[in-house]
């Protein structure tokens, strides 16, 4: 096993990986950008290194700086988390060349799956069904317009290196195509350092269902069943669950089997996810393979009892999978919601500020993955994902009961979050029925506004009490220039 592992990430996923490293008795090394000086992952890491700079290109995407730190701190391995460099084949290659283990698949697997066009070719060879599209290298406006016409509108413009909804645009009519392509390229360049895009048929009323894969260096590849991640807002996943209530046992077997075949086609090692689009007739199409850990891995962990991140480290260290496919059972139901720094009152625009207090719900079968802490600033430089809330119960119905309870008890202040929106989703009758297609939000929340909240008398009384005390305090101390320095440590209360 390794002795020391560097986490090339930030936020909730860095915290989660640091825990896994430390549980295994290893030393966890964190990196941080300048705006992240006070971030939670530093608090928990065993060693920390600063990469001066703000934007991702200078910091968490800075391959050179990260490799320097990895060498200086003498780590055995680097875990990239998700986002940032997690699907960057060049990075994986350079890590390996430096004699350090990259916790993930081979650079070749990342490269072939990371280029969606290449991935589709491989899947076609492996007889995994794919969605019609155009991945040609001629990306002139004219060609793209022609190809879009062939595939048929609506069309999805997607970033080849993409993921997480970045660099993804729907085009309903030809006149929108050029602007969409331009915007997708810009977003892709920012997010992934690569502005290659491709076109794909946009399936209406589809579900997004993905299969978690684990492969070891001895050639064993197993799946940990599926997750359904259909509920997305602007291609950003909001709520994920396992199992999908849409799949029959037979279709589940088929889709999981297709996923294992897809992984075998690239001799896949470590954790990965094969994403499918499933239409209402249960036809499923390969969408893409994410050659990394995913945000929503927690719902798989809760329904299978497998700690995926600890296994990633063990696999990377050369250990074989400790169980065979038939020892993996999918049990109960788990749902995750993502807490974003987005203000639903203000059209989901990003919200920034310092977290003033944070009291996530604590209870039976409630899991919190936190990237924040009271006192931590939320800046505009990185992804707005602050935390994840995951629940487990024996059935979907009781898991929803628990999720409602938990969302209603999520105490956070200092920034605005999408919690009021999440509350509405889990209370929506169509969600409860399981009618969760990828256009769920467009369909049921297109003209949504934050509902008027009924405020208990106690909240008003507490606000007034607080004013009363503050007025009394300032009268009492009127002779002293008590609050002239807003950062004075003794007026922090």
């Amino acid at each position, binding site marked *: 096993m390794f002795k020391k592992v560097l986490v090339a990430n930030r936020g909730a996923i860095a915290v989660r990986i640091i825990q896994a490293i430390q549980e295994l008795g290893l030393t966890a090394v964190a990196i941080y950008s300048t705006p992240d000086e006070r971030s939670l992952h530093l608090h928990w890491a065993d060693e920390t290194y600063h990469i001066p700079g703000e934007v*991702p290109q200078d910091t968490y995407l800075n391959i050179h700086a990260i490799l320097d730190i990895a060498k200086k701190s003498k780590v055995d391995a680097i875990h990239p988390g998700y986002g940032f460099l997690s699907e960057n084949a060049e990075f994986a290659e350079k890590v390996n060349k430096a004699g350090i283990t990259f916790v993930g698949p081979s650079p070749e697997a990342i490269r072939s799956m990371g280029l969606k066009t290449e991935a589709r070719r491989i899947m076609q060879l492996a007889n995994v069904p794919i969605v019609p599209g155009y991945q040609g290298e001629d990306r002139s406006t004219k060609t793209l317009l022609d190809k879009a016409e062939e595939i048929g509108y609506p069309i999805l413009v997607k970033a080849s290196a993409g993921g997480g909804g*970045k660099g993804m645009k729907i085009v309903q009519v030809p006149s929108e195509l050029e*602007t969409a392509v331009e*915007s997708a390229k*810009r*977003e892709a360049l*920012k*997010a992934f350092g690569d502005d290659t895009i491709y076109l794909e048929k946009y399936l209406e009323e589809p579900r997004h269902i993905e299969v978690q894969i684990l492969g070891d260096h001895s050639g064993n590849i197993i799946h940990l069943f599926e997750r359904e991640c259909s509920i997305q807002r*602007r291609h*950003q996943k909001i709520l994920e669950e396992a199992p999908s209530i849409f799949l029959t046992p037979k279709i589940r077997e088929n889709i999981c089997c297709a996923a294992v075949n897809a992984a075998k086609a690239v001799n896949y090692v470590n954790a990965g996810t094969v994403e499918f689009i499933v239409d209402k007739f249960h036809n499923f199409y390969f969408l893409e393979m994410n050659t990394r850990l995913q945000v929503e891995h927690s719902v798989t962990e809760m329904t299978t009892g497998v700690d995926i991140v600890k296994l990633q480290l063990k696999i990377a260290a050369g250990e074989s999978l400790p169980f065979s496919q038939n020892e993996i059972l999918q049990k109960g139901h788990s749902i995750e919601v993502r807490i974003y*720094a987005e203000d639903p009152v*203000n*059209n989901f*625009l*990003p*919200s*920034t*500020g310092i977290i*003033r*207090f944070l*009291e996530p*719900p604590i209870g039976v079968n409630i899991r919190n993955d936190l990237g924040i802490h009271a006192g931590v600033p939320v800046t*505009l*430089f*990185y*992804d*707005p994902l602050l935390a994840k809330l995951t629940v487990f119960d024996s059935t979907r119905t009781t898991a929803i009961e628990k999720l409602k309870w938990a969302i*209603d*008890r*999520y*105490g*956070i*202040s*200092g920034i605005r979050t999408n*919690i009021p929106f999440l509350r509405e989703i889990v209370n929506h009758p169509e969600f409860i029925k399981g009618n969760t297609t990828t256009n769920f939000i467009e369909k049921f929340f297109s003209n949504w506004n934050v509902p*008027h*909240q009924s*405020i*208990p*008398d*106690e*909240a*008003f*009384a*507490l*606000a*007034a*009490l*607080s*004013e*009363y*005390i*503050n*007025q009394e305090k300032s009268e009492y101390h009127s002779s002293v220039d008590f609050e002239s320095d807003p950062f004075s440590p003794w007026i*922090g*209360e």
Partner: protein
Amino acid sequence: MKEFYYEVNQEITKVTIQKIGNHVWKAIVNERELTIHLDDRQSTRLDVRINGRGYHCHIDTQGNDRFISWKGSTYALRRVDSLASHVQNLDNVKEKDFEPEIRSPMPGKVVKIHVQEGDIVVAKQPLLILEAMKMEYVITAPKDCIIQKILFHENDQVDLGNTLITLTLKNE
């Protein structure tokens, strides 16, 4: 005896509060009387008993905004000076249905400007693109209008509320 006013969803609630003992207050809200014992106050946290029952609450003050966390939920109130002043404010807002300037709805970076000063644009036409947290947001024209001034350049950082573009209605 003090009075405070809070606005939520454009409705005003009045709270009357009086200190009736050592760390004890009586508040009247919506004709309901609440006796509050303050047991402890630590930073944003208030430990109180309301009508005898203990709660661990948080109160966060940001300008006139009050975020009250009580029994797990966080409630957002807005303190206003009085019933009258606020209603007037609301009236002001209601009278205007066209703002002659577009303000930035968030802090972020201007990544693209689609228009030039003097352009005539139609309602919903994209004017510029802001970026924050790796996502792009398109700012569109509120009505058919004429672009007067563009106050930022591409790649400029803007803050929440900065005026980005001034406009006049096309038919004015």
